């Protein structure tokens, strides 16, 4: 566990992931609950959470909405074949657009020519089509081909689960 500052942090972090993988209990004093489970005191628990969040190992302790339920029924994974020499600049530009929720460079594979991925969400099909067109305009001639893969069903949405996995 590369960002952890000590071996004891590493063990505590794994326990923390397992304890909260189904969610943080909605108790009045969640850090006291965690402290009790981890066998450390509450100030140490809070300090551990702060260290992990500062290091990016915890992004945030947050609510994950079902975006379909909130009216964001349309989700498009736009994929682009962008000139390798331009992708650093253009990836940053596309990632900075307010309608893009995730933006990554990924490898091309046999039968898969796309190296830039940008996820867009909207309340209507026309919203995500418009976002795709805006991205196309920003990429201009540096992009050879693109597609938008629209999601039609959530098959699973549990998030990270370590407890049930086979240990190496």
């Amino acid at each position, binding site marked *: 566990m590369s960002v952890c500052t000590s071996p004891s942090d590493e063990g505590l972090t794994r326990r923390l992931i397992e304890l909260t993988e189904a969610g943080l209990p909605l108790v009045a004093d969640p850090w006291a609950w965690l402290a009790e489970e981890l066998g450390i005191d509450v100030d140490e628990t809070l300090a551990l959470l702060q260290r992990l969040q500062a290091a990016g190992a915890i992004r945030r302790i947050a*609510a994950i*909405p079902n975006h379909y339920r909130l009216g964001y029924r349309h989700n498009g994974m736009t994929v682009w074949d962008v000139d390798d020499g331009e992708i650093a600049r253009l990836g940053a530009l*596309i990632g900075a657009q307010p309608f893009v929720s995730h933006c990554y460079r*990924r490898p091309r594979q046999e039968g898969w020519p796309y190296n830039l991925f940008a996820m867009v969400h909207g309340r209507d099909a026309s919203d995500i089509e418009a976002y795709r067109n805006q991205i196309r305009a920003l990429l201009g001639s540096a992009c050879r081909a693109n597609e938008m893969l629209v999601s039609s069903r959530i098959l699973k949405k549990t998030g990270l689960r370590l407890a049930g996995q086979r240990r*190496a």
Partner: protein
Amino acid sequence: MDELDRQLINRLQHGLPLVRHPWEALAEELGSTSEALRERVQALLEDGTLTRFGPMFDIDRLGGAFTLAALSVPEERFDEVAAQLTAMPEVAHNYRREHCWNMWFVLGCETPQGIAESIARIEAETGLAVLNLPKEETFHVGLHFPV
């Protein structure tokens, strides 16, 4: 869903503050009480408006790994293969997408080796080739749905 629910959903997508008494801090901010807010979060989880409330770990930063991968599943086997993936704890999310690569899923494992093993297992159990697309660079991640 009333105005306080909306404020709570918007606020909690940004995260609980890492202060000694986070629910009290939030209650003060939203003009409510710790107990009322927690009851509302519980109700939003129960009715499916929220799918989870808790820490979001970036396993990459902890020596683990995520990858995005896809399968091209014959229509008549789609539900069967979806159930096989649902049964695997390594599969964090799975979506149907309208494309010849019609099943897109995220694997999250404690080690990079765990990803390779999961992919090998999926290929062996389904008889289908996995398109593995691990991220090489993150330009942006910040999912937020204002309501």
